């Protein structure tokens, strides 16, 4: 795929230049991925009440940027939705609010805390990971606002259970994903139809890899929460991972706290998101590290996924993304 921006118009309008360009059939990967994501986001106009899942993390920042491009100069026709575990890094929430305001989109935040107060969620302990509880709060928010389509930033390269996920993933009234009932997807002629009570989860970044995301952040010069880049932080070494020390995640008695240069590869629930040692100060540095990394993103950073190889799959069946 080839584009010529207006600045190249002069060169292009002379027939010679056009001919040499026209023989190039190369599909530069980021252009192809961006065009595909924009195409998918524009498919959303089929729905009455779509929402884009926006946590302030890097994948959702990329999604929002693509959505703004897809509908420019108009505004994307959807709200932003964040299911807050109550265990988020404050700088990520700040970034979330700031980006939502800049984009001029309505931001809906619903907290796991509220579900706990209502009694629809009960946690084993105060510091237990709240990722699993998100599914309940998500369904509650979906019902409250009658969202019929939720756009997520999940990628198929994240793990095995996601490798077979659809771009348009059809869910029953409980938000549950039924592997056998998924519809075949052909040529990008997506099946967007829903029966009453059902909803759709849509993943425009399905075909992106972690490296693609970082390359795109670098190319588009996207702002991200500072946690994604190197900073000094108190950590302990636990089960082969670095574990961040915060108010709600204190060190254990036998652990030695160290201050190390680290960055986060994902910025989810504080209680189960671990940083990696890094000096990467910008997106290009991170891309370089990603290209040479030896541990996949979730394995390195999410304690709760590691607890069970099929944890993610089970969460999907239960209605979490």
């Amino acid at each position, binding site marked *: *795929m*080839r584009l*010529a*921006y*207006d600045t*190249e118009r002069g060169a*292009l*309008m002379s027939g010679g230049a*056009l001919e040499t360009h*026209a023989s190039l*059939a190369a*599909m*530069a*990967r*980021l252009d*192809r*991925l*961006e*065009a*595909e994501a*924009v*195409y998918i986001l*524009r*498919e959303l*106009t089929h729905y009455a009440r779509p929402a884009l899942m926006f946590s302030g993390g890097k994948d959702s920042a990329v999604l929002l940027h693509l959505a703004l*491009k*897809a509908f*420019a100069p*108009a505004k994307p026709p959807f709200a932003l939705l964040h299911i807050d575990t109550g265990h988020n890094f404050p700088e990520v929430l700040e970034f979330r609010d700031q980006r939502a305001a800049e984009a001029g989109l309505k931001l809906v935040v619903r907290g796991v805390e509220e579900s706990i107060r209502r009694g629809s969620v009960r946690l084993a302990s105060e510091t237990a990971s709240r990722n699993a509880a998100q599914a309940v709060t998500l369904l509650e928010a979906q019902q409250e606002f009658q969202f019929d389509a939720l756009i997520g930033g999940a990628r*198929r*390269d994240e793990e*095995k*259970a996601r*490798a*077979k996920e659809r771009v348009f993933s059809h869910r029953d009234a409980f938000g549950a994903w039924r*592997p*056998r009932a998924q519809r*075949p*997807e*052909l*040529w*990008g*002629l997506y*099946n967007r139809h*829903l*029966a009453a009570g059902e909803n759709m989860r849509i993943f425009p970044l*399905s*075909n992106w*890899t972690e*490296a*693609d995301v970082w*390359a795109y952040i670098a*190319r588009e010069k996207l702002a991200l929460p500072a946690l994604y880049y190197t900073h000094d932080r108190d950590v302990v070494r636990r089960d082969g991972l670095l574990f961040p020390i915060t108010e709600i995640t204190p060190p254990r008695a036998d652990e030695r706290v160290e201050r190390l240069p680290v960055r986060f590869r994902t910025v989810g629930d504080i209680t189960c998101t671990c940083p990696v040692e890094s000096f990467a100060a910008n*997106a*290009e540095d991170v*891309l370089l590290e990603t290209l040479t990394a030896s*541990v*996949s993103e979730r*394995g390195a950073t999410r304690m709760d996924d590691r607890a069970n190889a099929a944890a993610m*799959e089970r969460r999907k069946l239960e209605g979490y993304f």
Partner: protein
Amino acid sequence: MDGATFFRPTQNWNGEQVRFMTAGSVDDGKSTLIGRLLLDSKVLMRDQAAGLDGDADEIDLAALTDGLEAERAQGITIDVAYRYFATPRTSFIIADSPGHEQYTRNMVTAASVSDVAVIVIDVARVEQGVLRPQTRRHAAVAALMGLNIIVAVNKMDLVGWSQDRFDEVRGAFNDVAGILNIKNIAFVPVSAKRGENVVHRGGPDWYQGPTLVELLEGAPRKQSLATAPLRLPVQVVLRDGDTRLYAGRIESGAVKPGDKVRVGPGAFAATVAHVRVGGAGVAYAEVGASVAVELSEDRDLAQGGVIADTEVRYARRVVADLCWLDENAWVPGRRYRLRQGALETQALIEEIRFVRDVSNLDNVPSSELKLNDIASVQVAARDPILADAFAELPGTGAFVLFDADTNQTAAAGMIREIVQ
């Protein structure tokens, strides 16, 4: 630091992306081959490879492509799975469809999102120059879907890298390809288990050709559609004050300001005033680009319409190859929703001309259409649809049918002839 030699990843990130599918008869070694591609191209991260260490001969490469719990329990793959790897020049997306006989539907799905098909054949199981029925089926589906083919002749280590055996497979496949009218085929002898000629060179002296990965990097992909007639289905009409912008993805051809076009389905003449990508004006955009186009004239064009070249034709009746994807068989007289580009309209299958028996490649008369059948049918649409042949314009020569009651995706269609 020396600026000239400093590695700038974002600049080097503009290589090509190739999407390919894999197919193979059960046990021919497809899963092993994918595992080998991932392992030798170093995309496998340490934790994903956990449990794979040990004696190189003992590595269960096939386990890498393993997926869902429910499938594991049943010991089968029921779907299309996507894998990602990259070489310094090219990034790849594999659409892995299972070899199980009744899953033609999955192969059709994988083929629809692929540029190339890699068909894996176990050299030791081709006897007296006869391919297995599943392999013939895979070749037939790839041909139907317009894909170029790379044949990986696998398990060459089991036959002592015999050139005769390799040639026997090539001859057998070429016979089938002749019947199917497949033109672009490449053959490569490999051992998925040991790795020769997959990512790294190896094997016999008699083969000096490219490895599988090299073939994929330089694969004869679907011909570039940049010089084909313009097809831009309108997904959404955007507004900029009083200006209307028609947004969609270019399915074939290219567009630039000043182009004379026809906007449909009425096929009214119009002129392109501006083309934008992501809000910014561009001087030119081609197939694959998601654009927003402003016209010089005020035209009646809505979501589902098309901006096309001046020769565009519409039709209400077409002959198409249909692959049936739904558990529910076709019921005569039943109405389906047809989606072509951004348009959805009602459609009726008026006649089944014949069903293709993809194992012996014969056309057999039939009055039914059920899961995994591939048939030639006549379809009538309520609204005019683009009269585009799939072979020339795959983006708009393709359509899908949805069941209006169950919402299931019922069939994948490829337009072959225009009736009226």
